[in-house]
């Protein structure tokens, strides 16, 4: 039996397969389809200090091998998460990771501080790369200085594993990754969505209410692989790779490029069982290639 266990700083994953924030609800939505406990971890929906209604409909449009979304961090706020959602999901036998989002440094700090108190949340993913909110969000992820400031501030209050989620909408993502590393991030995850846009040529109007949205799905996979490869060379902390993973081969591609763990995002919409199929697929791949441990694969291009 191949060894699938990986560590992201102090966080132990039984296998390298996580589900991506915003694409897997709070896990419960998938209970009918899979045993969520078999995943390496679940990254829940972006959580902010206060309740947010998100952007107006329409928020989604299909594109070639992908989709644009402009959800805009709709969520009930961190207090509601703690009082209503956390009690429901805290007993999953997998790592529940909260995606912490915000518009200001103090908002990130407030949410991180509160999540730090939750015993069964071993890590947060700091989302400094959401392209779908008017203020903050991606702005923190597109300059080294802004990224450092928010990470430094959160690092002061957050004591467990701190993953920082990077934006691909930058000239040099490895610079931002290095800045994150030096500001105290325990890991970086990439990529968030690429900023895109679609126009309805019959109505002659943008399809999304927000005009632009975030592109995800297999269309972006080649860009994501390249960025993971660049970042893995630039930093010493573990890299979590995502962007367009649809099957086991895609997941292996990210691991070969240097990812210690991977996240399955948009693919969950098309096949709600795909995350578990990838867990099984990675094990099969290792056995088939007579590789004893996933560690032999990571970055082994």
């Amino acid at each position, binding site marked *: 039996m191949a060894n699938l266990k990986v560590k992201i700083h102090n966080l132990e994953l039984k296998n390298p397969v996580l589900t991506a924030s*915003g*694409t*897997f*609800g709070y896990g419960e*939505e*998938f209970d*009918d*389809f899979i045993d969520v406990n078999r995943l390496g971890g679940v990254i829940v*929906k972006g959580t902010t200090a206060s309740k947010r*209604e*998100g952007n*107006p*409909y*329409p*928020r*989604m*449009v*299909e*594109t*070639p*091998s*992908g*989709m644009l*979304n402009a*959800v805009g961090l*709709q969520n009930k706020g961190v207090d509601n998460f703690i009082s209503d959602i956390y009690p429901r999901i805290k007993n999953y036998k997998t790592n529940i990771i909260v995606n912490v989002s915000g518009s200001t440094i103090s908002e990130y700090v407030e949410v991180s501080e509160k999540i730090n108190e939750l015993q069964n949340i071993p890590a947060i993913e700091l989302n400094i790369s959401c392209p779908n909110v008017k203020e903050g969000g991606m702005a923190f992820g597109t300059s080294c200085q802004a990224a450092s400031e928010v990470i430094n501030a959160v690092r002061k209050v957050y004591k467990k594993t701190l993953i920082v989620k990077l934006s691909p909408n930058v000239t040099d993502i490895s610079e931002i990754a290095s800045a994150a590393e030096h500001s105290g991030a325990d890991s970086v995850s990439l990529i968030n969505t690429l900023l895109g846009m679609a126009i309805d040529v019959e109505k002659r109007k943008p399809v999304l209410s927000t005009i632009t949205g975030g592109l995800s*799905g297999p269309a972006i996979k080649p860009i994501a692989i390249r960025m993971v490869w660049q970042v893995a060379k630039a930093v010493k902390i573990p890299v979590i790779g995502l962007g367009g993973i649809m099957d086991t081969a895609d997941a292996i591609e990210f691991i070969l490029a240097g990812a210690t763990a991977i996240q399955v995002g*948009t693919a*969950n*919409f*098309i*096949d*709600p*069982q795909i995350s578990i199929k990838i867990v099984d697929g990675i094990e099969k791949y290792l056995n088939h290639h007579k590789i004893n441990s996933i560690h032999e694969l990571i970055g082994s291009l």
Partner: protein
Amino acid sequence: MKKHINNLKIISYRSLNKDFFLLELSVPHSINEIRPGQFVEVLVENSAKTFLRRPFSIHDIDYENQIISLLIQIVGKGTRELSKQKSGEYLNLIYPLGNSFSKPTNEKTLLIGGGAGIAPLLFLAKHFKRLHHKFSVLLGARSENYLVRLKEFKKLSEVFIATEDASLGEKGLVTNHSVLTQAEIGFDKIISCGPKPMMKAVAMIATDKAIDCEVSLENTMACGIGACLCCVEETKHGNVCVCIDGPVFNVKDLKWLI
């Protein structure tokens, strides 16, 4: 009912006219708990141009033989691709999804359908019939040729018709039909499904006349199971997901008429 994901065998494919076709799918387990108003998410395989699943209402159910029927209008790449399926082939479905129409009261309900919006209404009409609930049906279409499944509805109840070219029934939109324009509408509830402008016009009339009104929305969806928050409709209680809190809504909860 637990949600399922399964490959369902197409046991019959029938083209109704150049725009509409009917699929009968065989389900390998009991479907007794499926309710009118619910829908399915269909994977369009081998299609170069579709990426996400496509949602369709459950049009008819044969509980005994475990058959789900879909009534599909060809409007774009996904539905065109699905129209090429043949019986004997399999479609991958996630089902059943969404809430359902609310329980019938003892008064009389008017079901109003336009375009592909008639799809969930046949299942509902059969359900009402079984429960001996009183209802009539009002169907609208551009012209007689676009009116499908009329015979099936007629077997179940009185059917009013409005066509834009007067080829059948009254001339005009459903909202111009005398059954809605007369001073005293003999219904205590209206259930409507069709193009959004139609549903909004119906909602206006119903609200005006203080008649309870439910609509079934067709917001674009990515996941269908409440995971992506893409399908939201603005309600008086904030943005809610059409795929789990809907697709059926009472118009009094929506922000349409404000």
